[in-house]
């Protein structure tokens, strides 16, 4: 075992190679460029395909082709670029193709800025593109976790034949942290992902009937049936793939809900609050979809209140509300447009809520 310093973007790239990704297509956009650049060299040296596409549309649609051909394929971008990829993500979901899409979120809306943000939560967890579909969304909070969740992303994509999003932000992408992995895993050969387990893939119809990858269903009731099957699949994902981390929730009067890098600032604030003997804990969703609803419902039985902290104007709040179902008050603190919540600000709000000085303006 060795500890190696790498930034989040590079770690996701290396983990993808290690997970058997043989196809990457991307288009430059800050703050995820290190990932595209990393894949340019790693795909080349490991015998995979790297394409610097002419647009995000081209990138996601060539990933569609590679996925249809049976490969483990990935693309990455940041917020405005992910908006452009939504067309392709909807098609991937409809055609039930596995692919991994990384979004290192930046401030929006529009061109916004290149500061970290979490304002694409709605887009990631609600679909983003057209139609009734879902994508599994994994939200790493640290560089080492990004390594593990990238592997998981490819496995879940293949298992459910569904696009999987890795939702990070500019901090995670740019930040260097030591990761502890077996050194031989780094910069080594591509893992040989076996395509034989994808009998639906387009490989030429030798010895079998032709395969067709499509999402067009014109016959009466055919598309409704596809949608029914998709919803059944999403129900399976919801029942089996919820992941979260709890911190001090067993004795918390206040549970802070935060994900990704924001959860690390919350963690520091909680550690200080605990020194002040404040009974505060944290629930960190690792999967944003499926969302840890059941866990929140459980916590709502004993906690007195919830606080959602996000780098957005309050998007995950909706999921927390849907989980808590009005049983307990929910407060929100967020910074939008690239602002980063400070430990002090979070600590102040924790103190206010727990010492019953909560101001109405933060209660939602």
């Amino acid at each position, binding site marked *: 075992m060795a500890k190696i310093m790498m930034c989040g973007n590079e770690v996701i790239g290396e983990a993808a190679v290690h997970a058997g990704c043989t196809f990457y297509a991307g288009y430059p956009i800050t703050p995820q460029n290190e990932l595209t650049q990393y894949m340019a060299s790693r795909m080349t040296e490991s015998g995979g395909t790297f394409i610097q596409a*002419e647009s995000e549309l081209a*990138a996601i*649609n060539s990933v*569609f082709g590679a996925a249809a*051909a049976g490969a483990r394929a990935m693309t990455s971008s940041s917020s405005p670029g992910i908006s452009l990829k939504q067309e392709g993500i909807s098609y991937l979901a409809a055609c039930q193709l596995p692919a991994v899409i990384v979004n290192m979120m930046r401030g929006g809306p529009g061109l916004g800025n290149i500061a970290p943000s979490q304002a694409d939560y709605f887009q990631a967890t609600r679909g983003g593109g057209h139609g009734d579909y879902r994508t599994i969304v994994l939200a790493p909070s640290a560089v080492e976790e990004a390594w593990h969740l990238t592997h998981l992303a490819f496995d879940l994509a293949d298992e459910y034949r569904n696009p999987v999003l890795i939702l990070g932000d500019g901090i995670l992408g740019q930040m260097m942290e030591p990761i502890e992995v077996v050194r031989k895993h780094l910069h080594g050969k591509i893992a040989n992902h076996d395509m034989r387990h994808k009998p639906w893939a387009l*490989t030429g*119809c030798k010895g079998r009937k032709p*395969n067709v*990858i499509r999402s067009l269903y014109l016959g009466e009731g055919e598309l409704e049936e596809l949608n029914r099957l998709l919803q059944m699949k999403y129900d399976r994902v919801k029942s089996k793939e919820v992941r979260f981390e709890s911190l001090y929730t067993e004795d918390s009067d206040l549970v802070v809900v935060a994900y990704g890098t924001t959860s690390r600032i919350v963690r520091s604030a909680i550690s200080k609050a605990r020194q002040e003997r404040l009974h505060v804990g944290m629930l960190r969703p690792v999967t944003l979809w499926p969302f840890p609803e059941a866990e929140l419902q459980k916590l709502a039985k004993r906690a007195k209140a919830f606080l959602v902290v996000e780098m957005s104007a309050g998007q995950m709040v909706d999921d927390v509300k849907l989980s808590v179902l009005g049983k307990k008050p929910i407060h929100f603190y967020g910074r939008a447009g690239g602002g980063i919540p400070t430990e002090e600000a979070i600590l102040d709000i924790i103190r206010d809520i727990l010492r019953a000085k909560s101001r109405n303006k933060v209660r939602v």
Partner: protein
Amino acid sequence: MKKIFERPKSLRDVPTHYCAGCGHSLAHRLICEVIDELGIREDVIAVCPVGCAVIAYEYWDFDCSEAAHGRTPCVATGIKRIHPDKIVFSYQGDGDLAAIGTAEIIHTANRGENITVIFINNGVYGMTNGQMAPTTMIGQRTSTTPLGRDITRDGYPLKITELLAQLPGSRYVERVSVDTPANVIKAKAAIKKAFKNQIDKKGFSLVEVLSPCPTYWGLSPKDACMRISGEMTKEYPLGVIKDT
């Protein structure tokens, strides 16, 4: 008795949905004949377009993928890069290739992607009720050019194939037509060459097929074919545009 004419094996024995006199049926058949003759049916992977030929996979008896409108060459690229030894072709109409997918076809050609593109040009959007395409002729009436295509309002017919021929990445580019039996034979030869180029790993090949749309040209199938030879080939001359 010796059988001298039969349905290509790659073409399924099912009725198509195409209008009477539409060129898609002919183009489908030519592709299938070529695939049979080259013995590559089990190695072919096609990318079908959005538009009238959207369910080409119902007629072709080999592996096929759908693609979002205009992204057809990107999907073909992804498949080809994963299976470089398979024969990958995209089948695209003028809306797909010359409008919404202009960027994609230019960059795919410019990368010299070793795929075959069959480009069906009937100068109109057939699937969506006959709107103007980039390739619509000057003065041509369509549902969105009710008084005829006007260059001051609508710009000029886009000679996308000539444009693609300019790119160093494109290897072989030819324009053919399916308006007469003689031209059908030439069209087949061009399609065959475009597939052989891919087998020989020569790079990007594209065959533009001028194709009748009697329904949205408001002509009989016969008059639609005559319009191609009389009017359309003046704007879009037939022949090899590039072969290197």
